[in-house]
């Protein structure tokens, strides 16, 4: 979803969610005594566009994290395929003992 194409309904939904989350923030309650959407925006000096951009940024970050993670998984897979196949039994025994050690 493009920020410029965000509908009024989406903006409403976002700000309701922001207000709900903010209502539970004791710092905001103490400072304002209420939790309206405008207070939410004022407290955090956000424009609607900035808030929406940040909203999407959360998903963008999640995506970037998984992309990098899955690339690394592919690297490990190609470098260790033979190793996994040949050493599985021996590997499992030592692996369990090592994890037990870490737990203490």
């Amino acid at each position, binding site marked *: 979803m493009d920020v410029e194409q965000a509908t009024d309904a989406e903006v409403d939904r976002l700000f309701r969610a922001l207000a709900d989350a903010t209502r539970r923030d004791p710092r905001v309650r103490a400072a304002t005594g209420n939790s309206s959407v405008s207070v939410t925006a004022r407290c955090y000096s956000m424009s609607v566009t900035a808030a929406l951009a940040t909203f999407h940024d*959360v998903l963008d*970050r999640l995506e970037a994290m998984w992309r990098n993670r*899955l690339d690394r998984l592919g690297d490990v897979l190609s470098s260790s395929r033979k190793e996994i196949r040949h050493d599985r039994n021996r590997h499992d025994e030592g692996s369990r003992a090592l*994890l037990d050690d870490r737990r203490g």
Partner: protein
Amino acid sequence: MTVTAMTKDPERCSMTVVAEYPATAALVWQLWADWQQLERWWGPPTFPATVTAHDLAAGGVVRYYMTGPDEERYHGGWRILCAEAPSRLEFEDFFADEDGAENADLPQTRTVVSIEDTGAGITRMVIESHFPSSEAMAQVLVMGMEEGFKQALSQTDALLAKQPT
């Protein structure tokens, strides 16, 4: 290229990534089921993961910490909802303090991993990760103005800074 497709759905607060690997589903599953393999890819080189508990079964818990360049440790884990080798893994992630106590104030995401052998030696893995509600996503934003955001996403920040896609 590993990642072959990606969709983001702000309405459902979800994100889906599809990756394909030239390996069997069993071998791809091992990358999750073998904690020593998991450590090799879960964290970026600048924030390597150390697994401290690994019970990959429904009701089980996986615990790990990631170590930053400043030697600071960031603890987290997964509550396993479903684990069906070699095709399906479902978990909720959580952040924790240094004693492993869960921090329920930080938002959690649910992740579903589907692994499917497509034939021709290619295995497709689909990762669907979603926030439980738009409110949970908004919580990340509210925290974003505060220090909590650093706790929740510093790993990702460092990752993005060091490893541009």
